[in-house]
Every structure is written in C-alpha cells, then in structure tokens.
C-alpha cells in the first residue's frame, strides 16, 4: 500500500509541475475562428431521432458564439479583424431551423445577420415567412418581415400587411399605426430607429445589443442631418449644398460623427449618405494611417 501511495504522489507532483507550462502552451496555440460544417439536417434527424430540438439549439449556440467572438472587436470601430463568414452562418441557421422550426433564437439571429451585414433581404424575409407557418402566435416574426419589406425591399403594401398581422397578434395598436404611417411618410430613418430600438430593448446578448446600438447611433446622426436639411430647405427655399453649409448656418451643432468611421455627405438627390455605407471596413485602419489587409479565412 505504502509503495502505491508513494508512486502516486510522485506522479501527482510531476503532473502539477507540467500543468503550468501545458496551460501556457494551450493559451498560445493559434485559435482559428471558424464556423465549420455541420451534417445535413436529414442525416442528423436519422441519427438522433428524439433530439432534434436539442441539436437545433446547440447548432445555433455554435453560430452565436462564433459571431460573438468576432463582435468583441467592435469597441475599436474601424479595426475589425475578420470579415464574418456570412454564407456559412446563414446555411447553419437554416439547417438548425429545419431541425426545429419553432426556435426563435434562429429567426432572431437570422434576421440580425442576414439583413444588415449580409444584405440578403429576400432570404431573411423568406426565413421569417417559413417561421410564421409554425410560430403562428408570435408577433415578432411579422414585425421583422414588415420592416424588411418597408425598409429594404420597398414593398410598402406587404409591409403594411405584416405590421397589421403583428398588431393583431400583439394587441399593440402601435403596430397598426405604424402600418399606416409607413405607407404615407417617406420617413425611412425614423422607422429604422424605432425598429432597432425595439430589437435592442429585448436583446440579451451583449454582442448583439452593442451592434444594434452602434447602428442606432448612426441613424440618429442621419436623422439629425435630415431634420436640419428639411428645416434649411423650408426656411431658405432651396436645398443646402452640403452638410458644412448646415453647420455654418447653425442648423446643425457641429459635424455629426459616423460610428462606422465614415463621413456623412449629401448625394445629388440631397439624401444623407455616408462613405462607410453603415458598415465597418474589412481591412485594418490604424490611427497612424498605416493599414494591413485582413488574413485569409
């Protein structure tokens, strides 16, 4: 017995000794942020017949963790390290929703990534309409779809239909009023801010909330310029030449800052645009002006 105890103790000491260097070596190992491939939903359904909902949840958590690891660089706008693999994320979310078409995390995340960043408006709306067959009680799906139709796809008729449905399901008269207002006004920016605020209020994931808040800040800056432009036009009977004229005339308190690192300007139709196009640049841009291209994926 004593012999066994002694030898076990020696091995334990050696283990404790190697633990430090081993942990350090693992920390330094390069970690490639990849989303990887998952098997086809049909195969997963065949091998795990009772566990589809669990599989869907675990696939979605994989996508969310992947996206979260990318978003942690947003505290330094303009210094984003990787461009996200949007096609892979979209495929993965679709696969998860094939396994469990009731999973709200899938629709919420699908809407978040497909629309603003990947610009896949039709795909996102199609996904939401697929979800509406299953989650027949959920007002959020027609709410998101309504926004897509109004803001991106320019189909105000379908947008109003979706907002009405959201209104009926939620009992919120606000949505019904929105349906009416968005048909009449051309106030796209205000609609976008309302929509994003609703999303941000209910967002529990810090990375997603941060992404949304940055976009809200950008659109609030745009709204301020639009309001100043409209006031200028009303008072002076002509459109301003550029944003600097609005600042000079006292309609704007200083040049609004674009959180995406671009510069706001007025295009030939006097619509407010930005050189960043409301997205972070794919390459590094350091404050000293030097740059470095992003690593290959």
């Amino acid at each position, binding site marked *: 017995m004593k012999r066994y105890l002694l030898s076990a103790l020696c091995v334990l000491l050696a283990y404790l000794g190697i633990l430090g260097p081993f942990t350090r070596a693992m920390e330094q190992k390069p970690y490639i942020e990849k989303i990887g491939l998952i098997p086809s939903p*049909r195969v997963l*359904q*065949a*091998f795990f*017949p*009772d*566990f*589809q*909902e*669990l599989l869907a*949840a675990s696939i979605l*958590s994989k996508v*969310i963790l992947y996206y979260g690891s990318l978003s942690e660089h947003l505290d330094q706008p303009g210094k984003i390290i990787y461009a996200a693999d949007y096609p892979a994320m979209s495929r993965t979310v679709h696969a998860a929703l094939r396994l*469990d078409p*009731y*999973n*709200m*995390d899938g629709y*919420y*995340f699908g809407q978040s990534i497909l629309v603003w960043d990947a610009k896949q408006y039709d795909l996102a709306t199609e996904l939401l309409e697929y979800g509406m067959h299953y*989650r027949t*009680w*959920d007002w959020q799906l027609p709410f998101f779809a309504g926004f897509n139709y109004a803001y991106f796809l320019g189909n105000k008729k379908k947008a109003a239909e979706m907002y009405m449905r959201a209104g009926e399901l939620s009992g919120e008269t606000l949505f019904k009023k929105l349906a009416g207002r968005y048909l009449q006004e051309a106030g796209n920016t205000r609609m976008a801010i309302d929509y994003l605020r609703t999303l941000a209020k*209910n*967002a*529990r*994931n810090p990375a*997603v909330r941060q992404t949304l808040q940055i976009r809200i800040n950008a659109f609030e800056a745009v709204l301020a310029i639009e309001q100043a432009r409209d006031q200028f036009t009303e008072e002076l009977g002509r459109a301003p030449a550029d944003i600097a004229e609005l600042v000079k005339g006292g309609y704007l308190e200083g040049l609004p800052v674009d959180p995406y690192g671009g510069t706001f300007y007025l295009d030939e139709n006097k619509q407010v645009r930005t050189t960043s196009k409301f997205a972070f640049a794919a390459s590094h841009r350091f404050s000293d002006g030097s740059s470095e291209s992003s690593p290959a994926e």
Partner: protein
Amino acid sequence: MTIVAVTMKGLLRDRVLQGILVAALIFLAIPSISTLSMRQVPELALTLCLSLVSFILLLLAVFLGGVSLWRDVERRYTHSVLTLPRSRGVYLLGRFAGIGFFLIGIAVLLSLVTVVVVSVVSANYPPDRPISWMAVAAALSFDAFKCLLLVAFAVLFSSVSTSFFLPVFGTIVVYLVGGASQQAYDYVSSPAAQSLSPAVRQLAGILYYIVPNFSAFDLKVNAIYALPLDPRTLIMTAGYGTLYMVFVLIIAAGVYSRRELG
C-alpha cells in the same frame, strides 16, 4: 415473492438508482446553460431537461432490458427459478414487468426534477407563452412508454440470444430505425421520391408498417413550445404502442419457453 418484486429489488441492489442520481446532477447545470439562449430561455431549459430524461431512459431501456436475462443465465439464477412451478413465459414477463415498473419509477422521479428546474428558470425568465404542463407531462409519459416498448424488444432479443451483444445492439438499431421510419415514409410518399423504382417505394411502405414508429411518441416540440395536443391522436398512439408491445412480448415468451438453456 413475485418475480416482479425480485427484479426491482435486484435493480436497487445493483445501485442503478444511485447511478441515475449521479447522472441527474447534470440537471443542476441546466438553469445556467439555458441563459445562453437569446430569446427563449425557458424553452431551452425544457429542451435540455426533456432531452436529458429521454437519454437516461433510453440508456436504461437498452442496458437493463438487454443485460437482465443474459445475466440470469450466466449466473445460473434461471436454473433455480425454473425448478419452481412457474412457466418460463411468466418468468420472462415478470422480468419485463419488473424492469418496466423500475423505468416508470425513474421517469416519475426525473419528471419531478424537470418540473423543479423548469419552474426555477421560468421564475427568473418568464416565457412569452405560459408553459403547458399538460404537454410536458404527455411528452414525458409517451417517452417512458416508448422506452417500455424498447425494453420489450430487448427482452425479445434476449430470449433468442446467448450473449448481451444482440439484445443491446439490436435494441439500439430498433431505436434508430423506429425513429427514422416516419421520415423515410414521408420522403418516399413525397413528389421528390418519384425517381425511385416502384419496388423500392413498395418495400418502404411495407417496412413502415412492420417497423415500430417511435416518432409518434415524441411530443417534445409540443411540450417546449406549448403547442396543442390532439387527444384522439394520443389515444391511437397509446393503443398502437400497447398492441405492439404485447405482440413482441408474446413472441418473446413463446421463443423463451422452447429454448434450450443448458
């Protein structure tokens, strides 16, 4: 003492219950894991709880059902029991019933743990739709029922086999095939399968009626998302399961009564 009681006592003596309780410690992690969800924390808690219960009951069904009769022969219990004035068929059914009651007891215990865990999670993260405890109870009951049917298959394989390999792996195969049968049938009936030969489609249709349909017993999605249940479908599923189980047990008892145990 009846064979049923002896079986259950044996399982308790084998510390199976303690093993289950250790596995059930995973339930403690479920409230924290559920918070990873963005929009559906209580639904994720339900998913995790129901999947864990499913998994534990599946393991019990496969291993208890598959190993029990084999072990009796190995340890020569069968030889002493069979000298008593009881038919072999009654002995086999007694073993099945003992394992079945034990499984049901475990299912009840794990269901209570599920209720506690999900209640705790939904107290901190109220669900959008109220939890349908009726659907949760139905999901857990039908899951246990499905596992009883698997035990019946395990006992059937044990009645023909001399080792535990066929009962254990055979039951696993039955589980996988039974889980996929509805999906395969739907595919073969769909327009997408028109390119397959008529013989293949005919065969698939016949196999669908022979192989057990386990997906009918999977009510998890109703429990997780509080979807309505159709009482008529549930009654038919229960009837289907009962008849199938009784048929399998009759075959098993018949085979076992004629078997050479020397």
